[in-house]
């Protein structure tokens, strides 16, 4: 069966074609203008960041050979031929990893409790006064914009070297991040139960406790678990500034060129992070059903 495709008359076709070309040309112009701007920004940035391709290509071999070196034992053999020698400090590292996990656990818990106390004040629908909401929001913004490691640097000066500074830095950063996420959950909560409770003459605290909290507590727990996952990574580098955990050992190994130690510590960190991810994913799945897993 043949189907006749009707072709428009020449004149009409020409007009349509011209309109089409014009539309496409305008789009292309906008795209290329944006692209030019972007490339210009990149060029300015590469001057600012002292990009030097000559150094890069001269020393790129170092990058490859660095991995070659961290995978070689002092005896000149590949690391995986002698696991005992590669992980010679496993006992010490596991202890520091345990400390790292504790830092992130305690920090996350403190942060979650503070965020819990603050989030009702920063949520649009439950905040008792708008000046209070404004203040709490700015406070939370400050806490999550300043990077955790900057807080750690300052706290190391105040509280001395050691895990206390790391815990507090993680706690503050988590307060900021969780406070925002928590208050977003509260903003999505159904307000009818609040009206119901308020109509019985209950105070603001009772409204929060009996109307909002039952709706949001599962979401809180889910976000707190996710934050714990993120904080484990964060805590693994807190030691770089002397705030406890495995990072201390890692930076010493990197700075002093203990090559095989670097790879061994990195492997233990990656495996731990991986295990924590799986465990918290499983816990979240168990607690809140499959849909909450991501």
């Amino acid at each position, binding site marked *: 069966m043949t189907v006749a495709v009707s072709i428009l008359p020449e004149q009409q076709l020409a007009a349509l074609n011209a309109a089409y070309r014009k539309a496409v040309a305008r789009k292309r112009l906008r795209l290329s203008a944006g692209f030019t701007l972007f490339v210009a920004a990149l060029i300015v940035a590469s001057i600012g*960041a*002292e990009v030097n391709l000559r150094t890069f290509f001269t020393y790129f071999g170092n990058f490859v050979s660095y991995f070659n070196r961290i995978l070689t034992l002092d005896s000149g053999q590949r690391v995986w031929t002698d696991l005992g020698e590669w992980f010679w400090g496993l006992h010490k590292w596991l202890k520091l990893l345990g400390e790292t996990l504790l830092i992130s656990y305690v920090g996350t818990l403190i942060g979650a409790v503070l965020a819990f106390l603050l989030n009702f004040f920063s949520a649009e629908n439950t905040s008792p006064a708008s000046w209070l909401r404004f203040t709490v929001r700015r406070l939370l913004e400050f806490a999550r914009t300043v990077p955790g490691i900057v807080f750690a*640097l300052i706290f190391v000066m105040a509280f001395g070297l050691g895990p206390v500074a790391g815990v507090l830095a993680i706690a503050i950063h988590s307060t900021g991040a969780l406070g925002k996420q928590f208050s977003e959950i509260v903003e999505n909560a159904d307000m009818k139960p609040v009206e119901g409770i308020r109509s019985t003459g209950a105070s603001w605290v009772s409204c929060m406790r009996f109307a909002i909290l039952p709706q949001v507590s599962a979401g809180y727990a889910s976000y707190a678990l996710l934050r714990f996952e993120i904080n484990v990574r964060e805590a693994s580098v807190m030691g770089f500034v002397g705030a406890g955990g495995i990072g201390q050992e890692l930076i010493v190994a990197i700075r002093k060129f203990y090559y095989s130690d670097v790879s061994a510590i990195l492997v233990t960190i990656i495996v731990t992070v991986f295990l924590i991810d799986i465990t918290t994913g499983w816990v979240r799945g168990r607690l809140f059903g499959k849909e909450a897993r991501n």
Partner: protein
Amino acid sequence: MNKPQDVNTEELRARYPDVFGRPASARLATPAMLIAALAIFVFGLVDLDFSPARFISGLSQLGWISMMMMPPDPGSSLPLYLKALGETLSIALLGTTLAALLALPVSLLAARNIVPNIVRFPVRRFLDSIRGVDTLIWALVWINVVGLGPFAGVLAIAVADFGAFGKLFSEAIEGADQKQVEGIRASGGSALHEIRFGLMPQVLPVIAGQVLYFIESNTRSATIIGIVGAGGIGLQLAEQIRVLEWQKVSFLILMILVAVAGIDFISGKLRFAIIGKRAVA
């Protein structure tokens, strides 16, 4: 009005045993979890040396430091700090762009609808392990390779984000509509044509949104990689903290806050311009 029904509790009890007699394990689960969480918390406090005396003396130190921070004052080094801030923004922009360019081809190899599982699985694990290593650690590695300075920071952010982008892009590709790809194939296009004309038009806006979002979040990461010597404002910040110049420290922190807010604003506008009012996270 009907009277309240006579409730035969015994009968209800027999009919709904789950409601009335929840097994002890179910009733105790929540308190047990809370107690366990609290026990680990207390153990953590003790194990990590949280003594009240230390905490209080630390707090008073902190109060003293905050007093010293007021008012923020750059002294005579304002031009130096502005240059460092520019360096930080450059690091974020270049690092993210580089990562996106590198990750795009690799993400095709990690997408289920492009390559068979036997290719996808190792590529995914490779990207996972890159992501498992923090940006700061990559910065230390690159400092060993190209020396101290912002260039090491660019490469560190590029590598760390390469892992994240590879995963995000491949998920975007997996989520793309297959019908358009089939259309290209039906009209006789090769595998490359399918990717170029079937997939890319669907995926690019999503990718552009993610890249902008990462430039935003990398402005934050770029402020800290200076702490290990990879250039930018973090270097100045760490130095001023070490020499206890608290007024300069607070000024630098303010600069970071303003810069991050500015970048947030610009990239928010751009994101909406590119992809419309669709949420990207």
